[in-house]
């Protein structure tokens, strides 16, 4: 697949060591032509933001599999704005909360925090890529 000219930063936020999904996401995004910058597991907000600045990224895709994303992501959008990444796309997906919660409410909470797209558990990366291409004007 030829490069589509877009750079995305991916990684797993917080004290979360789930590495397999992270590798799958990297593989699929790369095969779709994205320039993937993977900050890996156990990454802080600063790790994502620093990587996005140096690589001039178009989007940040945050994974969280251990239920603490809401704590880990507080202030993420504000920090992006502070770092000059004003219009960068922010996506999040995985098992982002614990317990049986109505996903519509969860989505709304994360959107209030500044995420452009929020994915429920079990959604495939291909779905996210469709949205990403749309949001980046590739389709």
């Amino acid at each position, binding site marked *: 697949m030829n490069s589509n000219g877009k750079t995305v930063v991916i990684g797993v936020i917080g004290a979360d*060591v789930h590495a397999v999904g992270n590798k799958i996401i990297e593989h699929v995004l790369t095969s779709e032509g994205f320039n993937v910058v993977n*900050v*890996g597991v*156990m990454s802080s907000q600063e790790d994502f933001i*620093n990587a996005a*600045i*140096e*690589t001039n990224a178009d989007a940040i895709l945050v994974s969280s599999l*251990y239920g*603490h994303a809401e704590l880990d992501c507080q202030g993420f959008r504000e920090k992006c704005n502070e770092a000059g990444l004003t219009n960068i796309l922010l996506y999040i997906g995985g098992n982002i909360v614990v317990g049986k919660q109505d996903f519509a409410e969860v989505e709304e909470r994360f959107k209030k925090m500044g995420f452009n797209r929020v994915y429920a558990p079990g959604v495939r990366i291909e779905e996210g890529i469709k949205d990403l291409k749309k949001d980046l004007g590739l389709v």
Partner: protein
Amino acid sequence: MIDAYLLIDFGSTYTKLTLVDVVNEAIIATAKAITTVETNIMDGFNKAYENLCAKFDTKEVRIIKKLACSSAAGGLKMITIGLVPELTVEASKRAALGAGARVLKTYSFELTNAEIQEILNAKVDIILLSGGTDGGNSKTILHNARKIAEHIKHIPIIVAGNKCCYDEIKEIFDEASVNYVFTENVMPRLNVLNVVPVREKIREIFMKNIIKSKGMDEANNYIDGILMPTPAAVLKAGEILSQGTSKQNGIGDLIIVDIGGATTDVHSLADGHPTKAGINLKGLQEPFAKRTVEGDLGMRYSALALYEASGEKLIKEYIDVPDIETRCAYLHDHIDYVPQDDTDVAFDEALAKVATRLALNRHAGYLEIAYTPLGDIFNQYGKDLLETKYLIGTGGVIVHSKHPEAILKEGLYSPSEPTILKPKDPIIKIDYEYILSAMGLLAFDLPDCALNIMKRYIVEI
């Protein structure tokens, strides 16, 4: 007749000569004299040469080549510019340190006029301009190139940033007649470090331009080449000793501790990958040959800074005298002071122990423990040096000490600071003849000869 190489180190205080028999791979003689950069660099050299000639039969030895390194006249002064402090700023700093430079300051993000003025006032020898991965951020490096083009014409610039900006930077610099060269990006991809091309460019500029500006022209005419800054020669020696040559193996991973009057340098030649399972490596990649410089840890000029950095309590762990601060201040003001009695000697050794301990703490990597729902997880930042095979000491205080191993042992892993990844049980060696920088020079022409001499003369205690 013996064929010999004369290796010269124009140091900040002493000009040191090492005469090497390159056929029998032996040191013929060493000598030193005070460096005379204010008057004529050759005065000090001639004095040292006189001292040297007294130590061997001049009729029996033919000097076939003279090579030099230099840290005289303040050494090679650089500033580095990057984008994000933890990424390209750190990468460019590591590249400059590995080339033997004194990094006076680093700059991040877009330069301001005040910062440009500061750079001009600092009278640096080379500026390293980086920023952005290849294909990454271009706005900042272009902004900084324009600022430089507007204000800084005479200082050589090395550009080692986002390669996609090079055409545009070329136009900007050519139009303003800036003195610049391009080389490969110091961080081509996120967290990937690429220091060797920058190091080579720094050395080229050092050889071409810096020698003249340091009043060392005359020395350059007499000898065959001032090849590099002294710390780069020490690092080169370490590389050969550790890695070997195309013909024979080196001795493996090692650390060199060099305690000087103004700074304490630590060089590690090791990958520094985790030595235990299940550790998550974080942050910018580490160079195999890594040099750190502690400007606040030194035996004389920096004795007072050492006092401030360590605190009286820490020095007291090693020596119990009432006037610690006064002594440090005195040493700071008398940089050529030679210990006069046993207390002076013990005090110097105490300072050396503190310098070793703190310098290794800063050089070695460390573990950070994260308490996660899956149990304790360890993140490693920097190099894991726990299993490093050799710890080598050099510098006046170690070479002249009666107990050099006691000084170096302060740089070992300590159960009281279990997260700092310092060597646990290395073999301790001492560079008694003070030959490391000379061997780094010799290694350029005769790497096997340099390796054999180091194996022979840098000995276990």
